[in-house]
């Protein structure tokens, strides 16, 4: 298939893998001290697992799967708020499909739908405006979710609703931002990451510059990365090249999509409608300053949080859940105490088991479960012996 197969060419993959092996050998990294590279974005995590990239890489490289899956990091309290909004009378609650299964403290949107709430899946926020026009006696609330990638489309929908004078449409805004989150990971004391694969689609909107601080202030290399398997391999190679040459730069592997300065009209729409929140709660990482956006006062009429009251309760994750440590690369997904047993894709306890883009769900679905559980037991035994 055109523009797809070119980026999945197994021969080019072999060439890149041998280049990667050559550099890691010259970097003198051993299996005991694997190099940790973080792919921030859940889309990258999905590609890595779908194509089996991790097993193709030398053991001296460890991929740490970051928090870049907006469905995964949504706190349970916010899901409860969604359910509360959806269960109001005369509300049509609209959402992207992958948010349906995220568990709240009592139920998911899927369960609320089964209990009678009018919840509908949409493919674009613009579909909500059509629904609002067709149902003038109902309020259509859109569950706005995602990083900077999806913000422009939400913002443009609000601007169009304003232009068309649609009054029965509002957003429940849960958009989150990448930069403060990467910063929070970099500031964490147990952080061991050596380089970053930056989210290509976020950069398509915001450009490369917002990530300069990773190289300038934290001295870590960063490569803006595309989503096909060859994109990922090439970006890993570019990171290794920087490490080998002792450089810390922001480089762009995804130049066919990402202009250095980003998407100006998209950014305009985004900043017209949204402003930074003081802080936003992340599942697995806790509260991070300025990591979410809310609607500006001028657009309060389209803000479901201002139009309707929501419970807005903070619900703590179960104590046994170690998502935060997995996100920072301190432990591997299968090393979590509840991985694959109490926490599995059907009954997820932690954020990372929720969506197929979450690191734990990816290991559970695509990794060899018995092998991983075996590894975990072995490690637990070793620790017992060591502490005894």
């Amino acid at each position, binding site marked *: *298939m055109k523009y*797809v197969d070119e980026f*999945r060419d*197994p021969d080019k*993959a*072999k060439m890149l893998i041998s280049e990667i092996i050559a550099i890691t050998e010259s970097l003198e990294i051993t299996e005991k001290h694997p190099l940790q590279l973080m792919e921030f974005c859940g889309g990258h995590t999905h590609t890595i*697992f*779908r*194509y*089996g*990239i*991790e*097993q*193709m890489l030398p053991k001296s490289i460890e991929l740490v799967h970051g928090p870049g899956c907006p469905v995964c990091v949504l706190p349970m309290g916010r899901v409860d708020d969604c359910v509360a909004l959806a269960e109001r009378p005369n509300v049509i609650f609209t959402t992207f499909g992958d948010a349906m*299964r995220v568990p709240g403290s009592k139920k998911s949107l899927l369960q609320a739908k089964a209990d009678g709430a009018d919840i509908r899946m949409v*493919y674009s926020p613009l579909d909500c405006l059509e629904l609002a026009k067709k149902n003038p006696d109902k309020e259509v609330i859109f569950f706005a979710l995602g990083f900077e990638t999806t913000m422009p489309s939400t913002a443009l929908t609000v601007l169009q609703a304003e232009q068309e004078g649609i009054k029965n449409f509002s957003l429940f805004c849960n958009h989150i931002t990448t930069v403060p989150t990467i910063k929070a990971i970099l500031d964490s004391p147990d952080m061991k990451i050596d380089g970053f694969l930056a989210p290509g689609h976020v950069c398509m909107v915001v450009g490369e510059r917002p990530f300069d601080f990773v190289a300038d202030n934290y001295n870590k290399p960063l490569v803006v990365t595309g989503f096909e*398997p060859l994109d990922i391999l090439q970006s890993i190679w570019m990171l290794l090249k920087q490490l080998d040459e002792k450089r810390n730069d922001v480089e762009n592997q995804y130049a066919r999509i990402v202009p250095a300065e980003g998407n100006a009209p998209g950014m305009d729409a985004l900043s017209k409608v949204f402003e930074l929140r003081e802080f936003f709660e992340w599942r697995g990482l806790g509260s991070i300053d300025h990591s979410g956006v809310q609607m500006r006062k001028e657009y309060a009429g389209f803000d479901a949080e201002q139009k309707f009251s929501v419970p807005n309760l903070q619900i703590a994750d179960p104590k046994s859940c170690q998502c935060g440590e997995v996100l920072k690369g301190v432990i591997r997904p299968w090393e979590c105490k509840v991985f694959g047993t109490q926490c599995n*894709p*059907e009954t997820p306890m932690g954020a990372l088991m929720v969506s197929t883009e979450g690191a734990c769900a990816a290991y*559970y*679905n*695509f*990794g*060899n*479960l*018995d*092998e991983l559980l075996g590894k975990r037991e072995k490690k637990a035994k070793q620790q017992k012996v060591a502490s005894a």
Partner: protein
Amino acid sequence: MSSVVANIRQRSGKCRAETITMAHGSGGKAMRDLIDDVFVTAFDNEELNKLEDQARFDLSALTNKGDLLAMTTDSYVVDPLFFPGGDIGKLAITGTVNDLAVGGAIPLYLTCAMIIEEGMLVDDLRRIAQSMRKTADEAGVKIVTGDTKVVPRGAADKLFINTAGIGVIAAGINIGTHRAQPGDVVLINGYVGDHGAAIVDARGEMALENTIETDCQPLNSLIQTMLEVCPDIHCMRDATRGGIATVLNEFAQGSNTCIRLDENAMPIRNEVRGMCEILGLDPLYLANEGKVVAIVPADAAEKTLAAMREHPAGLDSAIIAEVTDTPEATVILSTSFGGERIVDMLVGEQLPRIC
């Protein structure tokens, strides 16, 4: 009674209504007219036309054909009712016929129960009944008894159909998920994922440029051809909901073997691949309605494949995987990119109401 009145009373029914009302399920004349005019006219066979409360058949006619009686049932709730290449009626026949056929049975008789939502168009029902008859003829089965219920608006979505079927399995056939052995070879009779993709396409939400047709077809003739060439087929299932990923997992778990799938060997249409790319779906989990996955001993693989490719329902057949011993109860995909990954059972749903 005057002869005019008697004539009117006895006149066999013609359903003149345009839409179904609750009266069509009341047990009275409106229902009898609907059954006569729409269902009996379409299905028309000796066993059904007697209009008794049960169909009756000669036991010796069944025992002549084989050793074992096979029975199955399935309900059909697909939305929309009509889609490129098929409709709910065609599906209701092929689905039940195929469930019998993959056990090695020769399907013979089907039942048909209709649950109709008030307000449905009688013409749509007629089209669906005719499609069922046409498909039953293709599969060589008869619809011999049925039931009609009408429920108020909102209590069902337009039409739900249940069909049950019986068939006969010839002596010496022993197909079971526990029988896959290391060294065996896995075959499929053509492109995967067409039905699931066709339903997404037919719902019109994606406004795709291409029309993808369902693969909905009876498999019993193809399967009998396969059994003639290779009577010792070890495992066989039709890959419906959950796609071929689910069927292969059932084989791997049932027989405690590993199935190694080759992504490059998998027949997938470009249109289906393209749609999966856009929607983030995996064709391995997309539904099929005319695909059989069979595991045969290695020495029978080539001749079975050749026989399948000569049959109209198997022109694009391919060998897609082999059975090995470890890791047990696991399906592994060798990706076209050169990596490997586990293919697990589907968690949750990929698409609702596809069959």
